[in-house]
C-alpha cells in the first residue's frame, strides 16, 4: 500500500510525465449527436469519466450501462487500486487529468476539500430524503461535498447457539460471557473485539462513546469541529475501563481482525463486535446470529462510527451539468440506491430505499447505527494512530497510568492537528 518516499516520487514524477502524454479524458465536446430529424430535442452525448476502486466497480458496471441507455451519455468507469485512488485523485485533478466523478468513502472529504479538488453538491430539498448521518458525514465547513449511497457500521453480533439473551450493560455481558467460557470448554473468549499491534480505536468506539467521550465536538448539522472532546474526566473513565478489560483479558492486543473472525466462526465466543462485512462468512458457516447495538459500558448510549460511501464531483470537471445529473439525480434515486444495496450488500443512504431493505441482519445493523459519522478531517490518519496505539498501550499494560497516557494522547493529537 505505501511505498518508500523515493520510489513514490519516481512514480509520481513519471506519472506526471505520462499523464501529460495521455489524451485528455474529461474534455469532451460532442456535437449534439443525431441531427437527422428536425426534432428540437437533440440527443445527449458526451462522456463522464468515473473513478472507482476494485471493491466497488462490479456494482457500478450495470449502472454505467443503465445511465448510458437512459441518457445517451457514455459513463467511462476507470478502475483504480483502492490503495492509490485517493492520493491519485488529489494529485491528478490539478493537472486537469482527473475524472469527473470519484466514488469513495466519506472520510476522504476533508483532504479533498483542503486541497480544493472537489466541488460542493447542492442537494437542495433532497437533503431530507437521506439518512441524516449520511449527509452530515459528507458535510465539511457547512457545505455538502458528496452524494451518499450506502452506510455501514459495526454492532454486537451474537452467536445464538451460545447465548440467547443479551444484558443491557457491557459489564453484565462480560460476566455472562465468562459464564459461558466456564461452562463450555470450546468457548475461550467472553467477547471478541479486534485489536492488533497498531490498535483499533474504531472497534472500541461504541464503548468509548458510552462514557460520553466522543472524539470531536459535533456541529448542529452533525459534522465535526476540530475541537477534541475525548479528553477530561469522561475520557479518563474510559481509559481506566480499558485497563480493567485488559487486566481481565477480555481485550487482548494479539487478537486482530482475522483471528477474531476465525475464533467466532469456530464458536469460541458468544459475542463479537464487528461489521456487516463478515456476515456473509457467518452465513456460509451456517451460524445463527443476531445483531444488536453494543451494550453501554459507561451509562450513555453507545454510538459506533458510521462509514458512508458516496460520489464526489471533481472541482475541475468539464461536464459539471452531466456530472451533477449523474450523481444527484441518478445515483440519488431510489431505484439506483436499491440496486446498489443489492449488489454491494450495504444499507442504502436514501431513507425510502432503506425502508425497503428486507435482509434482517442488515436491518439490525442499520438499527444499531447512531448519529456519529467517522470524522473526515485531513489529520484523521494521525489521530487514528495516536488513538489506537495509546489504547493498545493501556490494554497491554505498557502504560501503567491510563489517565496520564490518555492525556498525553490528547495533547499529541492536538499538536498533530495544529501542525
Amino acid at each position: 500500500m505505501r511505498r518508500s518516499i523515493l520510489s513514490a516520487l519516481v512514480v509520481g514524477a513519471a506519472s506526471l510525465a505520462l499523464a501529460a502524454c495521455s489524451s485528455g479524458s474529461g474534455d469532451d465536446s460532442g456535437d449534439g449527436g443525431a441531427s437527422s430529424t428536425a426534432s428540437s430535442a437533440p440527443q445527449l452525448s458526451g462522456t463522464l469519466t468515473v473513478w472507482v476502486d476494485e471493491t466497488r466497480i462490479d456494482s457500478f458496471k450495470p449502472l454505467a450501462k443503465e445511465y448510458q441507455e437512459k441518457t445517451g451519455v457514455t459513463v467511462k468507469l476507470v478502475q483504480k487500486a483502492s490503495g492509490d485512488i485517493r492520493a491519485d485523485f488529489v494529485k491528478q485533478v490539478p493537472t486537469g487529468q482527473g475524472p469527473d466523478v470519484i466514488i469513495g468513502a466519506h472520510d476522504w472529504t476533508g483532504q479533498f476539500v483542503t486541497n480544493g479538488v472537489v466541488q460542493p453538491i447542492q442537494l437542495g430539498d433532497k437533503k431530507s430524503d437521506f439518512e441524516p448521518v449520511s449527509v452530515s458525514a459528507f458535510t465539511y465547513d457547512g457545505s455538502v461535498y458528496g452524494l451518499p449511497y450506502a452506510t455501514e457500521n459495526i454492532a454486537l453480533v451474537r452467536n445464538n447457539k451460545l447465548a440467547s439473551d443479551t444484558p443491557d450493560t457491557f459489564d453484565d455481558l462480560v460476566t455472562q460471557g465468562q459464564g459461558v467460557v466456564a461452562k463450555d470448554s470450546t468457548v475461550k473468549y467472553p467477547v471478541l473485539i479486534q485489536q492488533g499491534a497498531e490498535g483499533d480505536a474504531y472497534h472500541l468506539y461504541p464503548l468509548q462513546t458510552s462514557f460520553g467521550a466522543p472524539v470531536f465536538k459535533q456541529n448542529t448539522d452533525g459534522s465535526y469541529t476540530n475541537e477534541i472532546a475525548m479528553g477530561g474526566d469522561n475520557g479518563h473513565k474510559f481509559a481506566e475501563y480499558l485497563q480493567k478489560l485488559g487486566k481481565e483479558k477480555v481485550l487482548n492486543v494479539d487478537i486482530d481482525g482475522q483471528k477474531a473472525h476465525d475464533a467466532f466462526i469456530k464458536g469460541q465466543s458468544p459475542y463479537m463486535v464487528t461489521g456487516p462485512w463478515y456476515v456473509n462468512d457467518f452465513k456460509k458457516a451456517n451460524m445463527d446470529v443476531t445483531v444488536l447495538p453494543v451494550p453501554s459500558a459507561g451509562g450513555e448510549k453507545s454510538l459506533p462510527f458510521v462509514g458512508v460511501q458516496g460520489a464526489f464531483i471533481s472541482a475541475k470537471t468539464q461536464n459539471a451539468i452531466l456530472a451533477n445529473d449523474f450523481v444527484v439525480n441518478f445515483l440519488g434515486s431510489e431505484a439506483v440506491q436499491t440496486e446498489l444495496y443489492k449488489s454491494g450488500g450495504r444499507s442504502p443512504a436514501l431513507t425510502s430505499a432503506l425502508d425497503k431493505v428486507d435482509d434482517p441482519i442488515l436491518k439490525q445493523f442499520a438499527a444499531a447505527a447512531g448519529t456519529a459519522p467517522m470524522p473526515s478531517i485531513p489529520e484523521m490518519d494521525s489521530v487514528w494512530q495516536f488513538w489506537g496505539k495509546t489504547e493498545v498501550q493501556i490494554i497491554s499494560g505498557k502504560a501503567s497510568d491510563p489517565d496520564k497516557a490518555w492525556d498525553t494522547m490528547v495533547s499529541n493529537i492536538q499538536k498533530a492537528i495544529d501542525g
Partner: protein
Amino acid sequence: MTEQQVAERPTAPVSGDGGSRRSPRRLRGDDSSHARRPGSGFWVKLALVAIVDALGVYGILTAAGVHSWWIVASLALGLVIVNWAYFSRRAVPAKYLVPGLLFLLVYQLFTMGYTAYVAFTNYGDGHNSTKSDAISAISAQNQERVEGSAAYPVTVVLDGGELGFAVVQDGQAEVGTADQPLQPLDGATVEGGKVTAAPGVEILQFAQIAQRSDEVTQLVVQVSDDPADGTLRTQDGTTAYVFSPVLKYDASTDTFTDAKTGETYTPSDHGNFVSADGDVLQPGWRVGVGFENFTALFQDSRVSSLFVQVTLWTFAFAFLSVATTFFLGLFLAMVFNDPRVRGRKIYRSLLILPYAFPAFLSALVWKGMLNTSYGFVNKVLLHGASIDWLGDPWLAKLSVLGVNLWLGFPYMFLICTGALQSIPGDVMESAKLDGAGPFRVFRSITLPLLMVSVAPLLIASFAFNFNNFTLIYMLTGGGPDVVGAPLQIGSTDLLISMVYSVAFESGAARYGLASAVSILIFIAVGLISWLGFRRTRSLEEL
C-alpha cells in the same frame, strides 16, 4: 536485499542498426553499393526507427493537445537526436549511446531534478495546485445558500444571444442574464412551475445545456438590483438556488473579503490567503519556500527530541546488519568451500533460498512468527513462552537485526563463495608450508584477499541497509512506539521511515519536506560511501 548487485551487471547496448556492425572504414569503402543495395539490417533499422518516430509523433500531438509545451519540445528534440544518430554515417558511437543516454535523462536526471525542485516548494496537502485553482476553489466552497430561499426550477435560455436563467417567482415568469438582474418576462408559458416557452428568448434543451456546461454552471444572475439579495446559480441545469457569497474575491487588490465580518484575506509568502488575525483560508497553492524544508525537520520541536536516537539506531542497524550478514555468509562460504563437505551443492542451493523470496513477504511472515501469543517462535520453538519479540524496544531491535540476518546472509554467502574460489590455491599452500595455522591463514591471507573484491559490495550493502524502509515498515512499522512520543516514531524507526512518518503519517502529506529530507539522506549516504570507497583503494594496493 541487494538490488545493487543486479544493477551493476553491464547491459548490452540495444541497437537496431544492423549496418553498424561493419567497421566505419569498410562502410566508406563500398559506399555507393551500400546506398544502392541496403542490407536486411537497414530495413530492420528503418522499421524500428519508424516505430519510435510514430510513437514520438503521437506523443507530440497529444501533448500539444493538452498544451504541455515542455513535453512537446523535449519529445521533438529526442526524435531529432534519434533520427540523426541512426541515419548519419558519422555517428557510430552515438548509435550505442543514445538509447542509454535518453533513458538516463528521463528516468534519472529528470527524476532527480524534479525531486530537487519539489524540495524547494511547499507542495503537499493544502498546497496542491496553482493560485488560480485555489481562488476558484475558495470561491466555490464559500457560497452559502440564502436561508429560507426556495429552490427554483430553472430554464436556461438564450436572451439575445446571451445565456440567461428564466424562473417563476410568485407566479410571475422572470428572466435574467449575467449583466441583467431578474426582470419580468411577458407572455411566457409556464408549465409545472417552469417556463416552457417565451417570446424573444430561445429555450435550451438539456443536451444543449450539457454542451455548454462550463458557461451554465458559472453563470451568476442577480436576483434583484441589490447584490445583497443574492444570486441565482445552478449546478445541474434544472434547479437553481439563491446564493450569497461568504467570501468574495477582488481581482484588482488580489484579496478575499468576508461579506459578513468585512475581514480581508491577503496572499502570504507561503501560498495562503491570510487575514490580519492570522486566519488561514484553505486551500492554498504551491510556492517556493527556499531552504525551509531542509531545516524544518531540525526546527520541529517534536522531532528534535527523537532525532538523535533515531540517527544512532540507523547507523547501528546499518553497520550491524552488514557485519552480521557478512560474517555468517563468510563462515558458511568457507565451510562449504571445503572439498571434504559432502553434498555441498544441495546445501548451497538451500542456503540461497531466503534470498529468493521477496524481502517484504519474508518480513510479513516473520512478523506473524514473532507474534507473542500465536507466533511460531513462542508457541512451538519455545514451548509456549510469551516473549514480546516485537513489543519490547530492545527485543524489537534484536528481532529486526535477526530477520535482516536471515534475509541478508545468502547474498554475502554468494559473493564470498565466488571470491574464495578466485583466491589462488598456491598462496594458501605456501602459507601452510611456512607453518601458518588455519586462523593465521584466514587472518593474513584469506581475509585481505577477499576484502579486495568484497569491500565495495559491503559499502553498497551498508548504503542499502541505511535506507532499508521495506524491512522496518513491514516487520515492526517502526514500533514499538516510544510511549507518549509526540510523533509516530518507534524504537526501530530508521531515518527514512522517520521521514515517512513525519511527512505522510503525521496529518497532512508534505511532499516538499519528504523530498528535501531524502536529498539530505542521499548526501549522508553518498558521503559515507565515498569515504568507504577511498579506504578500499588502499586494500587493492596489497
